[in-house]
C-alpha cells in the first residue's frame, strides 16, 4: 500500500517563511542573483524545507498506513535533485519492512517531471 501526497507549487514566500522559521540564512534560497553567481539556474528550495514536508505528511501517512500508535525513532533523507520555484513535489510513502514493534517506511519525492528529488526512510517503533 502506498500513501501519496501532492504538494502545491513552490513559491518564494514558502522559502522566505522557511528561512525565517529555521534560521537558515543561505542566500541561494532567497536571492536569484546570488544563486546564479554560484552556478545555479536560479533560486532553489532549501533541502531541509523539502525534508520538512516529508516529515509533516508522515503523520497522514501513518494514519493511512495503520501506524498511528508508532513513534518516530529515526528519519533520514538524501537530496537527489534540486527543487525550483514553481515545481510541484509529490511524495510517496510505502512500508518497506515491519517487525516486532518496528516499521520502516520508504519515502520518495518526485517533481512534476517525474524526476526523483528526495529519497528517505523513517523508522517507527511502538
Amino acid at each position, binding site marked *: 500500500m502506498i500513501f501519496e501526497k501532492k504538494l502545491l507549487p513552490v513559491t518564494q514566500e514558502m522559502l522566505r517563511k522557511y528561512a525565517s522559521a529555521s534560521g537558515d540564512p543561505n542566500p541561494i534560497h532567497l536571492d536569484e542573483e546570488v544563486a546564479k553567481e554560484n552556478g545555479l539556474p536560479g533560486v532553489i528550495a532549501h*533541502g531541509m524545507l523539502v*525534508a520538512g514536508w516529508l*516529515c509533516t505528511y*508522515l503523520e497522514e501517512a501513518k494514519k493511512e498506513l495503520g501506524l498511528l500508535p508508532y*513513534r518516530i525513532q529515526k*528519519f533520514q533523507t*538524501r537530496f537527489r535533485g534540486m527543487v525550483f520555484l514553481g515545481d510541484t513535489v509529490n511524495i510517496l510513502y510505502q512500508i518497506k519492512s515491519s517487525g516486532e514493534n518496528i516499521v520502516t517506511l520508504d519515502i520518495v519525492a518526485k517533481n512534476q517531471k517525474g524526476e526523483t528529488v528526495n529519497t528517505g526512510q*523513517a523508522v517507527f517503533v511502538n
Partner: protein
Amino acid sequence: MDLKARLNEKVGPYHEVVTLERVLRFFQAVTQGEVPRAIDSLPSELPPTFLTVCRLGEFELLQKFGVSLSQVLHGEQEYQYYRTLRLDTILGSELQYETSLVQSMEKKGKQFVMTFLVFETKIYIPKKYDNELVAQTRSNLIVRGNV
C-alpha cells in the same frame, strides 16, 4: 585548506529555547494548505525536522573553515531520536547542543572541486533529562569550489 586536519573539531554548547511561537512558525513553514494557528491544532510531538534550528554549530564551523554559505548544498540529513519529543513536555525547555566535523572528503568535478563534509550534532535538554542525549543529527554538506 586540508579539512582532514580539522576532523573532530567541536563547537558549542549552543542553546535554543523551544517556545510555542517558534514551534508554530516552524509548523506553518513546513505545512501547505491549512496551517496550524494555535497550540490545540498542533500534533502532540515536535515536528521531526524542527531540530534543524540547531545548526549554529555547522554555520560557525563553515565560517571557521572559510566556506561561504552560498557555496553549500545539502547532500543528506539524518535525525536519530532517543526520546519522544512531546510538545507538552518540552515546550519552554532549552535545547543544548554541540557540533563537530566528523568526515571530510574532496572530489574533483567537471566544474568545481567538491568537498563533502559531515557534521554531527548532539542535542540535550539538561533541565528535563540531565546529561542524557535526546537526539543526534548528521548533516552531509557539499561545498562547491575551493575550501
